[in-house]
């Protein structure tokens, strides 16, 4: 084939250019460590890389969220532990206060400690995080959730808000618990009101009815609550002495079928009467015809009592009762109720602590999953875009050899010219 001079030059130069471009490209790959330099180098892999990038970024965000959730929940857990300790101490004080040998000074000392525990609890419940946000206010994190009223009682000013954050593509975890659920929404055993309507015998009567205690909530809800109010009337025996009782309905009529019982004094000489999940204690000299009413409560005697109010009522009882029989009985009633309410409060806190533990477990397992996914992600990503250095380096040395050969041969060939011999 006939080759023209320009053709020989062009071909030689183009060969060098092509080889040079290939070598430069390999060098670029080697210096960046990437097989794919722009999406067009491998469109399919590039889109996959874009997705993996997005995935990796999401995973790292989830990781941040997991850390934030752990911090938040751990802080809450620490505070709940403190709350539990305080409640435990309050429970001990309640038991100590039940000691009949305790004199007024001893009671005062206990009341004083209770007052301090109450304050401690109050400040724990109004805990703030490092950013000054209240932990237990629900959504209302910038106002104090538990407020002390002028009369000494407490009000919850927050709401039921619970904040969740995303810790996985379809996983959310709650990072706070509101104060209402933790410390206010606590079953109150003293949710009925009691009153005595005694027969006038012309003498001072000392018969009394204790505070009502709901001991079986299920029966109370289904049997007692619908009636609203019942009465206990003391009935007499053949001697005309108080010997039994019957339960009357809201209108003062006997139940159908009648509900009656015998009065049997317990070790401390009181009569416990149980009806429809409610238990009351009658004390003193009972006369036939005495009526004691039990009705669904209002005011302090409602379904729920906050833990602060439980402690406060206990403290007030210790402060305000004396050594009289009435005083002792009032203490006995209140101590019994407080004990149960404090236990309820502890249960409530324990329930949330359990849920906290469960959430922390979920966080931990999610973290592991997350790390694993990140690892797999990185591997896939690296498989797609990273350079095989062994291959690239051997390719580069091959390309350098070819390039050098092309350059040398070009110089040789272009030097061949008949004119060199025309002298």
């Amino acid at each position, binding site marked *: 084939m006939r080759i023209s001079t320009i*053709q020989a030059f062009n071909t030689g130069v183009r060969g060098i250019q092509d080889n040079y471009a290939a070598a430069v490209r390999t060098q670029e790959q080697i210096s960046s460590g990437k097989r794919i330099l722009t999406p*067009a180098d491998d469109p399919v892999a590039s889109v996959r890389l874009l997705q993996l990038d997005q995935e990796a970024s999401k995973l790292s965000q989830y990781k*941040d969220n997991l850390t934030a959730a752990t911090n938040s929940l751990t802080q809450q857990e620490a505070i709940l532990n403190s709350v539990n300790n305080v409640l435990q101490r309050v429970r001990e004080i309640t038991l100590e206060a039940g000691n009949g040998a305790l004199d007024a000074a001893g009671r005062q000392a206990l009341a004083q400690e209770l007052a301090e525990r109450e304050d401690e609890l109050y400040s724990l419940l109004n805990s703030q995080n490092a950013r000054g946000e209240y932990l237990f206010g629900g959504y209302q994190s910038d106002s104090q959730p538990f407020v002390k009223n002028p009369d000494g009682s407490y009000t919850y000013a927050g*709401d039921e808000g619970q904040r969740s*954050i995303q810790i996985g593509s379809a996983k959310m975890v709650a990072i706070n618990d509101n104060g209402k659920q933790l410390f206010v929404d606590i079953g109150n055993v003293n949710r009925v009101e009691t009153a005595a309507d005694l027969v006038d015998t012309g003498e001072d009567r000392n018969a009394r009815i204790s505070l009502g205690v709901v001991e079986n909530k299920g029966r109370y809800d289904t049997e007692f609550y619908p009636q609203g109010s019942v009465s206990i009337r003391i009935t007499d025996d053949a001697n005309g002495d108080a010997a039994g009782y019957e339960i009357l309905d809201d209108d003062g009529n006997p139940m159908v079928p009648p509900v009656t019982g015998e009065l049997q004094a317990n070790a401390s000489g009181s009569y416990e009467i149980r009806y429809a999940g409610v238990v009351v204690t009658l004390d003193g000299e009972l006369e036939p015809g005495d009526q004691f009413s039990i009705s669904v409560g209002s005011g302090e005697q*409602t*379904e729920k009592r906050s833990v602060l109010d439980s402690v406060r009522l206990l403290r007030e009882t210790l402060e305000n009762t004396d050594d009289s029989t009435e005083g002792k009985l009032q203490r006995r009633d209140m101590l019994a109720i407080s004990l149960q309410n404090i236990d309820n409060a502890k249960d409530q806190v324990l329930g949330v602590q359990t849920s906290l533990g469960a959430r922390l477990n979920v966080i931990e397992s999610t973290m592991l999953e997350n790390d694993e996914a990140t690892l797999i992600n990185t591997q896939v990503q690296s498989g797609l875009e990273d350079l095989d250095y062994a291959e690239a380096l051997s390719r580069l040395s091959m390309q350098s050899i070819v390039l050098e050969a092309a350059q040398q041969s070009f110089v040789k060939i272009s030097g061949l*010219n008949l004119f060199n011999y*025309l002298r």
Partner: protein
Amino acid sequence: MADLFSIGLSGLRAAQTNLSITGQNITNVNTPGYSRQTAVQSTSPASFTGAGYMGSGTKVTDVQRIYNQFLTNQVRTTTSAAAANLAYNMQIEELNSTLSSTASGITSGLQSYFDALQTAIEDPASLPARQLFLSEAEGLAGRFNSVHEQLSTQNRFINQQMTTVAQQVTRLAQSVAGYNDAISKAAANGAAPNDLLDARDEAIRQLSEYVGVTVVNQDDHSINLFIGSGQPLVVGKEASILQAKPGLSDPSRLDIQLVSGNSAQDVTDLISGGELGGLLRYRDDVLDQALNALGRMSLAIASEFNQQLGKGLDLNGQVGSNLFGDINSPEYMELRSRGRESNRSDASLDVRIDDTSQLSTSDYELTFTSDTEFTVRRVSDNRVLGPFDLNAAEGEPGYAVFDGLDLTGQSGNFLSGDRYLLTPTRSAAQSLSVVMTEPQQLAFASPLAAQASLDNRGTGNVSQPLLTEGPQPLDLARLQALGVEFSYADNGDGTGVLTSTSPPLSIDVTLGQPFSWEVDGHTFSMTLSGKPLDGDTFSVGFNEGGVADNRNALALAGLQTKQVLGQGEGARGFSLLDGYGDLVQRVATFTAQSRTETEANMAMLTQATNNRNSVSAVNLDEEAASLIQFEQYYNASAQIIQVARTVFDTLISSMR
């Protein structure tokens, strides 16, 4: 003996001619388009003598160029294809790296934006976290703006390039016409004007670099050139003018006009091949598509985020305000359409974007068939939509809403025959901007909060209400005044009824399942779970002071994966990032294709050029050999004269 002299002389002359031609070949070894020449030699007529016919020397009858029409044509067509691909490739490579580079890329911007949102979700009351989100929003808008700006720069570059190319084409067409004239005159004597022919071929080859041309040879050695589908660029010695003019429907894009005599014809859509063809193909197939896809994304971002923010409360308890500029502000609506200059009315058409998830990335051509009726052609698939009527009400046939666009409520008076180009998404990426200034205004909270009453005997729990639908903006006064007291009545089988007196509501609920209720156009979704008892009450009221509420922010974060794009005509749609990934992949695939095509075209061009050079180009060795050959020829011819002289001398001296 005189014969021998003249024979020798004719040899000398032929040798001189051949040496000149060899010299010409050697000196033009680097001249583009030069075809090597050769002398055609023949014997001079013989004369009859007694001994028979006796030769009388040699003569050069013609100087020819070594030339193959077919090979030259091939060089021309492959040049045109390679130039088109090269121009296309250069542009798309730039776009390819623009879209993928992390600095300007949208992906990382979106990611930081959603990361900042997640940080704010963790602590919605924190002003620094909100400020970070706001700044990232500004950053995101900035990225869209700058990518749009880069693409617009490409468009401006293409405009400039088109102008230059049109001038070059015009200049070359004129020189081809000039060569035509010169060649037909020069060829009149029957000999081929080799160098003129070469120069014309080269001019046409250069022309093919700029635009694809069809070549038609004429009898008088002139050549006619046509572009597009047969539009005359050069006819004989007349050349047309190619010029770039602002587009009829979109002045920011130049169109190509062919002016011959005093008539101008728009040939933009007809041109193929050459740099011009490559640029136009890039503009139509890639650049406009990329701009539209980016625009659609930014519209979706602005609209979806503004809408969701409008469903929440900000840190001050006010209804959320817009984070991004309103996509339907009057100036934007006007920007989306452009009337033809030839329209009889000068009314402007406002294009409202109703639903960004329905938007396509196509442009639309709208033609009024009467003063209120019109049809619309979707450019991407050439589908004709409509007919529509501006006066049709919702639900009536012809209601002017399609592909997420709303053309109702026009104020202009249109006339039959008016035409408009709608580019709803074209410039949207440029107008994405953050209008919110105070981080407190970010509406991360939901408007209502629910509470269970402390007097409840049951353990029923009510979830916090989520606003699923509501007017834009929300009726704040109404929501603030809202105080719904739901009272529960149990059916005993895991279902129950929630009733309220103000507003009067009665809702059947299944425990653990979400239910929804409505008040004055605001629809809320809630779930009642646990074991509520008869008479338990749940109150729902305004979320006063709910600064740590992140419900609405969570809904915002949901937009990261929600399918907010491309749901037109019942499609499933895709998320923002997938939308961007789709664009990147499309451009990457086109780029990869164009690389392969460019390589193939370059190889074909190299091959064609080699083929042509192999035949027509000069080989210096060959010429060196010719030099030696013709030098010897000259010497030998001179020897003939020498011999003739010697013979003559011998004769003369013998006569002494």
